[in-house]
């Protein structure tokens, strides 16, 4: 079998890694900040307690790098929840199969109505999501949805259950250009506790999913850890290691990271390791400094004022006017995966970006 990220992460013992992170001092931080290109070891320094005292310096450099690589522009997108049927038991998730909520999936006609409603608001880039249910949302269904959505949007990304390389190849040929798959938690022990049953229990299959997407011809692949499930410093490090690995191995794929932070949802699972705003910003800046060219996505899980303040510091993509209920754009029904904290409309986000001196970019890819 080909080497995969699984083999790479095995080499990092979490206790040793944590010691490494904890022992970094201010001099180490300064040294990392003075480098033109950083190594993965520098990332450990940048998520250290010592670096939390250097946020302003980190922010200045991150802002400069972001401006050089991406200019004064932020790409906007919105999610469409296709179905919330799920066979997994992720203890933290609103779609957990044990949660009692109204389950449904969009028919192609309903998807078309959702797409129309969303595209009228100006959205061109969408993210199609499903829960994990091969019975309710088989690959064939996803393929049909991609084709239908292609009539309305210029870029289609998928956030669906992990598939095989050939499935990704077929979906890319159908018109999907991006894939998002969060490992949720890289710490294997905690992963096992959080995913007690269902196919998602398979840590390795999920871990190797982004790579299958890269090989399957996806133009962009997004990864992330769900912040709040485990120790954020080591989780951020593993995510960075994963992104670093993918960018080296698949230089033609645009790798991006998301920083999903846990929000309240149906089932009310208490957040295990809360990440505060300062820590969140530290993680984001560390990503930008290590990987100047990658995309960083911030969703509407975050508060409006907080999101606004992050612009310029590294964010390249933001969701706008998001609804996380199945069928929620054309009519409100069903339960969402998480509660949206930034409830502003697409137009309000657009105006906010202009006010902050940034150009909202609705179209940054063209299906060819």
């Amino acid at each position, binding site marked *: 079998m080909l080497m995969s990220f699984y083999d790479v992460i095995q080499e990092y013992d979490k206790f040793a890694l944590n010691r490494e992170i904890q022992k970094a001092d201010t001099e180490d931080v300064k040294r990392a900040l003075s480098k033109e290109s950083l190594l993965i070891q520098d990332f450990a320094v940048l998520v250290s307690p010592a670096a939390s005292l250097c946020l302003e310096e980190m922010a200045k450099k991150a802002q400069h790098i972001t401006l*050089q690589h991406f*200019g004064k522009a932020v790409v906007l997108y919105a999610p469409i929840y296709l179905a919330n049927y799920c066979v997994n038991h992720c203890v933290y998730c609103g779609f957990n199969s044990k949660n009692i909520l109204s389950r449904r999936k969009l028919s192609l006609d309903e998807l078309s109505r959702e797409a129309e409603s969303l595209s009228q608001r*100006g959205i061109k880039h969408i993210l199609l999501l499903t829960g994990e249910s091969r019975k309710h949302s088989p690959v064939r269904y996803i393929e049909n949805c991609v084709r239908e959505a292609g009539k309305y949007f210029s870029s289609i990304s998928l956030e669906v259950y992990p598939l095989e390389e050939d499935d990704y190849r077929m979906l890319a040929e159908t018109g999907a250009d991006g894939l998002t798959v969060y490992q949720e938690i890289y710490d294997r022990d905690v992963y096992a506790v959080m995913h007690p049953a269902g196919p998602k229990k398979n840590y390795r299959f999920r871990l190797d999913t982004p790579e299958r997407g890269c090989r399957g011809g996806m133009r962009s692949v997004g990864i992330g850890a769900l912040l709040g499930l485990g120790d954020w410093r080591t989780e951020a490090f593993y995510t960075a290691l994963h992104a670093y690995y993918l*960018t080296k191995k698949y230089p033609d794929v645009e790798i991006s990271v998301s920083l999903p932070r846990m929000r309240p949802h149906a089932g009310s699972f208490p957040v295990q390791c809360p990440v505060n705003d300062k820590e969140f910003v530290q993680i984001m800046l560390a990503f930008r400094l290590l990987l100047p*060219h990658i995309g960083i996505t911030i969703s509407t899980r975050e508060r409006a004022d907080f999101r606004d303040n992050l612009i310029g510091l590294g964010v390249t993509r933001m969701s706008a006017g998001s609804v996380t209920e199945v069928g929620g754009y054309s009519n409100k029904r069903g339960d969402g995966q998480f509660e949206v904290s930034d409830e502003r409309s697409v137009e309000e986000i657009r105006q906010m970006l202009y006010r902050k001196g940034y*150009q909202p*970019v609705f179209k940054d890819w*063209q299906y060819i």
Partner: protein
Amino acid sequence: MTEDKLIIGGISLKNRLFIGSGKYSSNALIPQIIEKSGVHVVTVAVRRVDPGVKEENVLNYIPEGCILMPNTSGARNAEEAVRLARLARAMGCGNWIKIEVISDTKYLLPDNQETLKATEILAKEGFTVLPYMSPELMTARRLYNAGAAAVMPLGAPIGTNKGLKTKELIKIMIDEIDLPIIVDAGIGKPSEAAEAMELGAAAVLVNTAIAAAGNPVGMAEAFSLAVMAGRKAFLSGAGAVREYAEASSPLTGFLYAKE
């Protein structure tokens, strides 16, 4: 002396500064920049063009009389570049195409081999092809044979503002290739644009250094002036650079003393 003209694709260009369009805080800056700096050629990523909207459609901000140079940014191979180019033509973006084929998302360095393939195909289809490339003489020769209208070597990786790091290679291309050499990418300051022009570059393309400036309109004007100054210097024939001071009594004067 004959008039100094830069003719590409049968069009006589009024300004040797080309600009980008993708990094501004607002598209509304583009017409202001063009008005102040007199820029004649603007490149636009086909992937960003959205004819369906008004305010965010970059094409609505490019004044009449300007030459639109769509680019194939996002293409990872020749095939994708060709498809984007055809799409640009179908969208009414004209006949010019700047080929960008990049399969390295980290440094955004162009893939010369795929760029050459795309150039061969698109030149045959009647496009005015301006390939963006890593400066390399043999590829430049092949691009010439493939029918490129100009070649666009990078001065440094895109967005880095590092200046003319590839100067020696660009100089060789200017000397050897019978096409306009347009330095694209990496130029961070007007002085560096002037330097490229002094070397004999036909034009320069600047994006990040203008878009990321505190005052993009002012910076574009500064670049335009620098490009004109550099061109004038090139045409006027700069004095040779000397390593040592010129001795007023020649060291070999004794050889001629009796003559």
